[in-house]
């Protein structure tokens, strides 16, 4: 078991062994979450602050439940409505919060790199809950856990990530993680929604859904991020649905036992057909949400162990 991180800023910094550590621990928390007493004291006495500079219901709720089930004192701050509007800089906000001695800081921010910047200025563990178009590590970890539970392994799988890759931090974290675990990653979508030179990341790029889905084990759909678009990337939603929306016909090109994933929230009828999303034989979208809580519990638990070890100033075994 290895996990040597002080913060969880991205998948980029994680070693495959560390990814396994998180997933193994998350597996056990998933069991706990299904039992009648969903509580442990792993984070007892610790304060967790969720700072969301961008709207979020699902991720914030997931982090909140994860913290509470582990016994942390959890506080949510809706940063959009607060001092940012009064002109305070991110750093000042961070320093103000830091003075209240939080132990875990969960941060979502609309700008890439903002969470890294914040992590430099505080002396607690920082978890990236999504920064701009950069990374969303807990989403990639929960996706990995879902895949591992469904497929029995997390290597040598063909995973097609489809849709709005350019605006997606989920896609970036996922392609890094899946690559580290030695899977075959395909990116499928219109070229206007592909980041430049993405083919140099060791992935295969397709602009045709049927080719891209051929023999895939996992089909990961992404939300069309209309709020991040600053101009016309696609001619219309109905054309997008026609060419890239996941329906039974397109899915038929994937393996017969391929699973369908979506990080949510879904735009039914834009990137995914409603009946596919609800098909309990194919769709694992609800399981993703369930694994989200487990993975976040695991990540916070591991970071808290490292934090405690560091504070106790142990010279050996500072990191688990």
């Amino acid at each position, binding site marked *: 078991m290895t996990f040597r991180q002080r913060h969880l800023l991205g998948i*980029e910094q994680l070693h495959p062994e560390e990814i396994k550590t998180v997933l193994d621990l998350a597996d056990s928390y998933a069991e706990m979450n299904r039992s009648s007493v969903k509580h442990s004291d792993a984070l007892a006495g610790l304060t967790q602050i969720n700072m969301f500079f961008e709207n979020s219901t699902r991720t914030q709720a997931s982090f909140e439940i994860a913290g509470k089930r582990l016994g942390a004192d959890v506080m949510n701050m809706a940063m959009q409505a607060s001092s940012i509007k009064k002109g305070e*800089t*991110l*750093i000042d906000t961070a320093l103000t919060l830091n003075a209240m001695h939080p132990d875990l800081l969960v941060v979502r*921010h609309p*700008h*890439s*790199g*903002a969470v*890294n*910047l914040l992590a430099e200025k505080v002396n607690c563990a920082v978890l990236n809950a999504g*920064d*701009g*178009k*950069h*990374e969303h590590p807990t989403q990639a970890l929960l996706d990995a856990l879902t895949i591992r539970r469904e497929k029995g392994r997390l290597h040598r799988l063909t995973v097609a990530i489809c849709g709005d890759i350019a605006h997606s*931090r989920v896609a*970036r974290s996922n392609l890094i993680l899946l690559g580290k675990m030695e899977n075959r990653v395909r990116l499928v979508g219109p070229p206007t929604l592909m*980041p*430049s*030179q*993405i083919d*140099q*990341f060791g992935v295969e790029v397709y602009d045709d859904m049927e080719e891209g889905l051929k023999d895939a084990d996992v089909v990961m759909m992404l939300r069309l991020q209309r709020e991040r678009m*600053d101009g016309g990337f696609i001619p219309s939603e109905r054309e997008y649905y026609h060419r890239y929306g996941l329906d039974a016909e397109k899915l038929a090109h994937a393996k017969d036992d391929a699973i369908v994933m979506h990080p949510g929230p879904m735009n039914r009828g834009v990137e995914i057909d409603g009946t596919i999303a609800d098909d309990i034989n194919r769709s694992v979208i609800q399981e993703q949400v369930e694994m989200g809580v487990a993975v976040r519990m695991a990540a916070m638990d591991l970071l808290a162990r490292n934090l405690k070890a560091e504070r106790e100033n142990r010279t050996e075994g500072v990191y688990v």
Partner: protein
Amino acid sequence: MTTTFTNARLINPETGTDEIGSLTIEGGLIVGLNAGEAGEVIDCGGKCLAPGIVDIGVKIGEPGERHKESFRTAGLAAAAGGVTTMVIRPDTTPAVDTPETLSFVTRRAGQVTPVNVHSMGALTKGREGREMVEMGFMLDAGAIAFTDCDHVVTDNKVYSRAMTYARSLRALIIGHPQDPQLSKGAAVTSGKFASLRGLPAVNPLAERMGLERDLALAEMTGVAYHADSLSTAKSLPALERAKAAGVDVSAGVNIHHLTLNELDVGDYRTFFKVKPPLRSEDDRLAMVEAVASGLIDIISSMHTPQDEESKRLPFEEAASGAVALETLLPAAMRLVHAGLIDLPTLWRALSLNPARRFNLPGGELTVGAPADLVLFDPDAPFVLDRFKLNSKSKNTPFDGARMEGKVLGTWVAGERVFGGNDA
């Protein structure tokens, strides 16, 4: 008063020579080369003596942002960096777009700055690209060129009229070529690194698109045009064609695009956010080669002071620009030490070419030229500490960097403005 520099490596950009010799100055002018010892003697100990740097891209925070840089601090930084002439940018708040503002700037500069200062005027009022400034009056008030800096004039009619008008006044126009739509909101150059970091990016071809447009307008109007802040390999063939076709065009590059590349941004380090954004290593090497071959005429610092608050922000929100007056020389020496360029060729781009293009005295080591000189040790190593810079703002990408090349003394019109007596 007469002074003779003896035992100096004379870096002469005009003759392309780098030889030990002596140089005599008197009454603010160079009066002798290898003409024996006269007056006070300064033994240079075999170190380099070159024309002072003529830096055409300096932003000073006056008017409007004096907390970032004042004429006094910029002047000290220039002297410490071997820059004897600063050509200052009009992208201040408000912009230098009237003869009155220009006179204010010139007066302020004269009071407190130990080096020569010349001002450029904005090309259009408020740098908004709509109405041309009173070029005639501004030339009378001392403007030496006109530019809207990083604001691209998008209306071709406005731009071509301003160029035509400028031609009749024999005024130089400077553009920062860029396609404004493609580069809008971009923080880095598009590519693998930008995709990995999830930052808004611009394709390097956006620069060539802007350049081709500017070159066509320059050809159309016959104006003297300087394409500044070029940074990509793909722009160079267009420039070469225009020069070969006899268009009155010169070109410049900023020191950071010769010494750094896009990967230096690393983990969102905002001190490496400049405009245009840092490019690929291939682009960097192509720009160095273009300077060595003479296709690119001028190297400037694009000195852009930004306070801590403007830089301590998420990368996308952080301000662009870096201070560079004091690091221009040691940074440029990296190219020499890497064997990519020799000293006289480098100095052509640092002093001779800018002086000639902007019609300024100096930039050369010839009898009768002003005694604007820099004495430096090309090999002296040091680690840069940004808090020791003279600039009010400390936003240098070279903080903590190992550099070679120390200025030992700077003279402006024969007066020593930097360095002790123990050269």
